[in-house]
């Protein structure tokens, strides 16, 4: 299962992808009739056939610019959460994909220097207490700053996505808080 932001991303294995990874390669249309398990078998197969069979819970994806361009199909974000990907780190994301990912509890980190990171490298993500700017720490100790994440989106990822967050809110209302 996905590691939310409150669980550490510590020496996570990197799967390195290129630029312009689109939704249709993450969640191929031919399998959209099915659930995330089936979509998961085919996730990224057109660009990295070793990803779906090899990815392990807690791994991270590091990609080039424009990750998640294309369709509104949120399965393109949900499938990575389903496969246990702890975060996607890229210089830029599709805006629509960005919303979908946080709604599904998948952490995205906008990191201008992400492409310096190498395949199979072990990286960590640090959230400094009191600071809203996360950073990626490379295996060689280099620190790559990331764009800040607004509090309400951090809360959403921490809750595991929008659905659990709405459930929490409705329980609070029902309990009279």
């Amino acid at each position, binding site marked *: 299962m996905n590691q939310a932001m409150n669980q550490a991303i510590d020496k996570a294995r990197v799967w390195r992808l290129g630029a*312009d990874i*689109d939704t*249709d*390669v993450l969640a*191929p*249309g*031919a399998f*959209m*009739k*099915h659930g995330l398990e089936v979509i998961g078998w085919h996730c990224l197969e*057109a660009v990295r056939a070793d990803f779906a069979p090899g990815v392990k819970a807690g791994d991270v994806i590091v990609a080039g*610019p*424009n990750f998640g*361009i*294309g*369709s*509104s*199909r*949120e399965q393109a*974000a949900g499938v990575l959460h389903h496969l246990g990907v702890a975060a996607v780190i890229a210089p*830029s994301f*599709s*805006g*629509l994909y*960005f*919303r*979908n990912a946080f*709604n*599904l509890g998948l952490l995205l980190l906008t990191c201008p220097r992400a492409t310096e990171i190498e395949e199979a490298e072990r990286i960590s993500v640090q959230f400094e207490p009191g600071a809203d700017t996360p950073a990626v720490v490379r295996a060689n100790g280099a620190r790559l700053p990331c764009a800040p994440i*607004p509090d*309400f989106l951090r809360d959403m990822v921490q809750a595991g*996505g*929008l*659905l659990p967050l*709405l*459930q929490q809110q*409705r329980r609070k209302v029902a309990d009279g808080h």
Partner: protein
Amino acid sequence: MSPAHVSGGSAPSRPPQTLAQKLIARAAGRDHVQVGEVVTCAVDLAMFHDSSGPRRLKPMLEALGAEIWDRHKVVLVLDHYVPAQDADAQQIVQITRETARQWQLPHVIDSEGICHVVLPERGHLAPGMFCVGGDSHSPTGGAFGAYMFGIGATEMLGVCVTGQIWVQVPRTLCMHWSGRLAPGVSAKDMMLHMVGRFGMNGGQYQAVEFAGEAVTALSMSERMTLSNMSAEMGAQAGLIAADETTVAHLHRCGVPEDRLHDALHWRGDEGAAQERFGFDASGLSPQVAAPHSPANVHPVGDMAEVVPTIAYIGACTGAKLEDLRAAATVLRGHKVATGVQLLVAPASAREQAQAEQEGTMQVLREAGASVLGNSCGACAGYGATFGEGATVISSTARNFKGRMGPASVQVYLASPYTVAASALRGRITDPREVLA
């Protein structure tokens, strides 16, 4: 949200606002909004379809024990899995129809066309509205002066439960087109040119606004193509301020007068801060996006060696009435070349009926077209797609590797004029040569 806050439109303290800012401020119950701030907006209309809709929303609503906030503000369209190609698709369609009955949705459009085309056609959109759609081409609604953008199913759940959504107020990128398009050059060529220039994420999830003489001269059908493919530029919304053309069109779509009386008021203020990019429509040649990206754009003349096996006129982007007419203009009295299969999937049943009545469909059939159902068809890649090794010239919006068939399929995106001219000559062809 207090109405008193909305009325202070001409207060001297209000900074000049773009159209995007005005639409968002209205929905947020604010006098004005600042670029970059995050605001919560009331949703006037939520559209979803058979893929993003009930099959995903129903289990989540049940898990929450919640109901739809206002079913009169929801439009459900069955367009992705119809006609059902197999048992799995049939099941999705069945769940969608059963759920629509259970929720007593008053606005259901079933197998009568593609959501982005039938939504305005049935009078659901008007200038000033704030709308969301469960589909990435939802910016199409911007052609009618509405702020409309695409969201995923889980975010749609949030809208269905609360009637609200957050938005970060975007900057506005104004695409100003002077001059007039030459015959045989269309809105699709303008859009491919812009996607090629700015890239697939060049819109940076900001608001794009299309303006200038060349845009004003376009029909609503053509304006919809611009707003539709704002998605391929990575913009959140693709707006065109309403004018007389918009109002006359919406009257014909049955939008009542009381929803149109302030239509022309929805435009950006003089002096509102925006980034402006200038283009000359009169110098534009037909454009083609080569595999496998809508941003891989070249002038049509560079593609003359490409020999298509399939010419596809389809999708919300490229099979509206004007698109069918454009193809017919090129094909009238001719047959497509040997070795090319011409497929036409009109974007809506009503528009197809109009095209039948005026003889446009007959021209296409006589040229050799096979006419397919009024649905997303091969464009979405969810059902019937193209076979191994096909080379396709297509009026659709996306040519990602593997989207419309196996990875071996090569898809070239172009205008309906160019698709028709290429079908006629058996190689990618500048439609101006045929029309001359």
